[in-house]
């Protein structure tokens, strides 16, 4: 049963033939395909990781920009508020000054009008008084001396008032 014979040599040749045929025509393409797939998966994973990192960087950049924009917007609004407040204060001040000037002007004019009116009244009173007195005393008080006297009296009266 355990006869070692030429079958041994034949088997070695058999196997070598099988090995050579398979190695040459079958394993090369298959191992190549498996290696290609392996490399491709590794590449894909690498590029996916790279893309993820890029996206992360972009996201960070955007967040930074957004924060910057927000900061800027806040500054702009603050500045605008400041400017508006300044304008408002200026206008109020201007209005106040103008109003005061107008008030002073009006007071002055009122005073002038008043003086004018007093003068007019005085003249009118003198005329009336003279007329009335003249009519009353008729002939007796029409000399210049009399006129003057009456004026003095009239002034006395007006000043007393």
């Amino acid at each position, binding site marked *: 049963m355990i006869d070692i014979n030429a079958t041994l040599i034949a088997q070695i040749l058999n196997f070598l033939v099988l*090995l050579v045929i398979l190695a040459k*025509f079958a394993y090369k393409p298959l191992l190549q395909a498996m290696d290609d797939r392996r490399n491709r998966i590794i590449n894909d994973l690498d590029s996916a990781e790279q893309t993820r990192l890029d996206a992360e960087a972009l996201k960070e950049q955007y967040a930074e920009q957004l924060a910057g924009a927000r900061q800027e917007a806040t500054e702009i609004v603050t500045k605008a508020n400041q400017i508006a407040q300044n304008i408002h204060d200026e206008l109020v001040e201007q209005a106040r000054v103008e109003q005061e000037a107008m008030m002073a002007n009006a007071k002055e004019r009122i005073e002038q009008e008043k003086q004018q009116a007093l003068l007019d009244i005085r003249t009118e009173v003198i005329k009336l008084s003279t007329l009335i007195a003249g009519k009353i005393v008729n002939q007796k008080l029409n000399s210049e001396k009399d006129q003057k006297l009456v004026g003095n009296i009239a002034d006395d009266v007006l000043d007393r008032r």
Partner: protein
Amino acid sequence: MEVAEAAGEGVIHYLPVELFDGVVINMQTMYMSWLTMAVVAVIVFAATRKAEIIPSGIQNVVEVFIDWLNGLMEGNMGSEGRRAAAPFVITLFLYLFIGNEIGLLPQVGAHLTSPTNDINVTLGMAITVSLTVYVFGVMRNGLGYFKHFIQPSFLFLPLNLLEELSKPTTMALRLFGNILAGEILLIVLYKLAPWVIPDIWIGFSLIVGFIQAFIFTMLTMTAIAPVFRSHH
């Protein structure tokens, strides 16, 4: 021993034929070896006829085995060793695996035996492995590779030679004994109890066939590994 041998002679036929003077070939073994080679070749070519980046069908099945063996090779002898030895180890495993299982197919119309039930085949394979180790060793380290026979000192030469001879011998005998015993027991069981029991034994033998092919392949890797590890 003689009784068992006689029983074996009665059930296992190698069909020895004397082709020339003193050149005897076991034709049954040869036929089955060729059949095994054909099956392996058909499966591998079917899987690689158009190897795709995205595998499907039989390419997937073959790739599962190749991936598994590649992983074992990578772990045992590094990536350089894997690249060099992959075709040899994969072919070896597929041949032994198919060869071990082919004798368990239903014996309808043809007398199917495992080529590995012949000591000539298993010893031939074991010797092939030893020679392959030498070839890799010389390719990688030059003739200086054989210096390891006299290391750590030349006194170890007989011991190293003994080891060098006993390794293939044990590999061959382990595979041969397992497969031959499985087939003999199967035939005996058919004669004792033709129903159910032989089927259970066939199921067991299928596992044994896989494990023996795996053990032989694994020992081959560990035999090749030192060649690729010595330089590091």
